């Protein structure tokens, strides 16, 4: 099989499910250290971090997908995504795999998948026993559907 027939992905775990992100969009993966909260930012914004001299928002992907929040642990990772001039960090439960997937194994998502996370799906892949949900980077980074809470002016 030649290179042209595969696409590379970064796999990460979120609430027991494996997701994939197009590897070109991923700038780096970091341990989650100090996150500075940003007051009055949308709920899924956990705060900001420094990454390569830049102030980058850290998005809690559990919150973003409507899952329950979970305290950070040693496996928690910040996946820094650079997409269309923006740089954004996604907090995920775990991330460590880099895989090449044959393009013909990438399937469109079944229409029946609904809910918040269904909206962010680009395609699905079966990797042996595992099902990998490929994320639509555009949609995940499109925050226009969330309104920013107004500051508390008493």
């Amino acid at each position, binding site marked *: 099989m030649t290179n042209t027939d595969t696409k590379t992905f970064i796999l990460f775990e979120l609430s027991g499910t494996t997701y994939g992100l197009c590897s070109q969009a991923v700038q780096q993966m970091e341990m989650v*250290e*100090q996150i*500075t*909260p*940003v*007051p*009055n*930012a*949308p709920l899924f*914004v956990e*705060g*900001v*971090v*420094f990454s390569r*001299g*830049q*102030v*980058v*928002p850290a*998005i809690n992907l559990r919150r973003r997908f409507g899952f329950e929040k979970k305290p950070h642990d040693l496996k928690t990772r910040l996946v820094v995504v650079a997409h269309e001039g*923006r*740089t*954004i960090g996604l907090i995920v439960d775990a991330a460590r795999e880099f895989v090449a997937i044959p393009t013909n194994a990438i399937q469109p998502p079944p229409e029946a998948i609904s809910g918040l996370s269904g909206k962010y799906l680009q395609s699905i892949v079966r990797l042996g026993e595992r099902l990998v949900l490929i994320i639509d980077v555009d949609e995940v980074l499109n*925050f226009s559907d969330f309104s*920013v*809470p107004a*500051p*508390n*002016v*008493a």
Partner: protein
Amino acid sequence: VSKEETSDDICFAEFLDDYYVECEEHLAVSRQSLLALESFVDHPHIDRHLLDELFRSFHSLKGLSAMVGVHEAEQLAHQMESYLSVLRKEQSQLTATGVDSLIEGVKTLDQIIVSRRENVQPRDIRPLLVRLESLLTAGEPSQVPSETGTHGGDPNAWGLSTEKSAELAAALQKGARAWQFTFTPSPVLAGREINVNTVRQRLQKIGDLIHAAPHVKDHGQISFVFLVTSLAEEETFRFWQQDGLTYDAYEAPISPPVNEVKADSALDAGTGTPLAPSNIVRVDLGRLDELMRLVGELVISRSRLDEGVKRAGTKLPAPECRALQETNQAIERQLRDLREGVMRVRLVPVRDVFARMQFVVRDLIRESGKKVAVELSGQETEIDKYVVERMMDPLLHLVRNAVSHGLELPKEREAQGKSSEGKLFLRASTTGETIAIEVEDDGRGLDAQAILHRAQATGRTSFAEENETITLLDVICTPGFSTRDEADRASGRGVGMAVVRTVAEELGGSVALDTRPGFGAKFTIQLPLTLAIADALIIDVGGQMFAIPQASVHEVIQVDPKAVTLLENNELVPYHNGVLPLLRLANFFGMSGHTDTTFFALVINSGLSAVGLTVDRVLGLREIVVRPLTDAVIRVPGVSGATELGDGRVVLILDATALARAARKQTKRNWATAACDPPADTALYVDAGRGELRP
């Protein structure tokens, strides 16, 4: 072959970049001079220095434009130069039409150059050329210079200095003939080792090389034109045409007015003041940004070092420790000097901005029939190049507003007992780390009633109950707000007051309005001197550290919770002779804050607009490197940026202006009762228990 061509292209592109920059400089100079020239209308004698300067600018513009093949600019500059030459010889008196035409000329040159940069068709300059031509004939009909620039870059139009003309004349007297050779390099010729240098050598063998110049053809191809005097027969070089070297007999212009112009210019180009002093280096702003960023990194590294030295200090013997501390302090001082040095490089005087403003005023005067006297002060005040470029359009908008809406028509003014001539003040000044630019007129001022009425009519009723000066600014800064039903030509050009305020605040500045109906209006724009690095107070709010630029904090006061009075949900504390409304930062940021212990209030603004931001503790004063919050998802009210204090953690920078505005909205009913005007010089940074703060 293709490789060679691309490297030529790159060369030419760089050449063009230089061209734009140089033109911009010459246009800026000529704008200044033209404004000064205006006062000499109908005077028999004009300040010679002024004319010389203008002449030099147009002469350079013409030469530069010819070099890169922007023919319209070359022709126009030439015609303007000719008119100035007539004025210099006092063959004609400067008329108002003359000044108008020159100003129109400068504007058109600007447009032509912009068109070239953006690769669009430049506007038709023929009417303007005719206008300038007629000015010449009005002076002395017999001296009308022939239209020499029609073929732009035509080597016949090259001006020879007096020396070279003399050289040419002498050679011709000796029986030599003048030839004009044109050499167009090509990769094929280069392969035969025929290039500019070998051609030059060849020409020098047959005679004297009087002049040489590059010439750019329409499709961007470069050729070189040489003027040679030679005693050699034509046969000698007839076959050189095979080598890409064509020739023509050179006809020296007979009693050429153009040459007279050149003769005049010899004093400028030759021994006189050089056009561009050689000790000036032009630097790309991007490189300075990079330099500033590196200095910023150094500042952060030093604060890390500082922490390290403090920690090591407890373990080291005293003498070693002292030596380390001294070095550390020396680095701090040097870093400060370095930072200031880099910052100074970025500063430019506001003079050019003011000149552009005056140009706008001139146009408006003509359109509106108003009389306006512009008074300037602080033209030499320096400001960051980036800041000034971002503020250019907003400032022009304020000026347009002042003239077209603020100032009244002469009759109207007289009826109100004002002098028929309106006054427009443009002022700039620096205080500490901020620069203030004021645009003030003595016109009709802002009519709060009319503006509120208008706001209500357009559905912006949330302002209905506010009619104070400060909230007036809020109303007019609402996006889409306009007191005119139809955007007129003067003010309807894209930026409204909303943009003025947004840009100022994005740059870390603020806008203030002071108006009295019937007496005029004053807009004051405060801007930071530089963007990247600032001194900031580090504060603690609800357990989280924040930074706030020191320049925006008027004073820090300690507040006893018992002294807080509650008035219709608003907290007020006694302050100087009045009261100060408080904004609980912890509350505003949705954090838990305690209200029962002694706390601190940072006083933002002064006078009636003063508000106090409550904080738990003030931790210190630090030099911070300001980083923008680039992503919209983290841009929240009251936060303007972020910084790092050396431990890798992000600290948010508070936006004092936005917070003060939020506080004013909160206290909109009561703030007028907070009548107080604290003396400005009593600012004191209260020690928060760490002993690190300085007054």
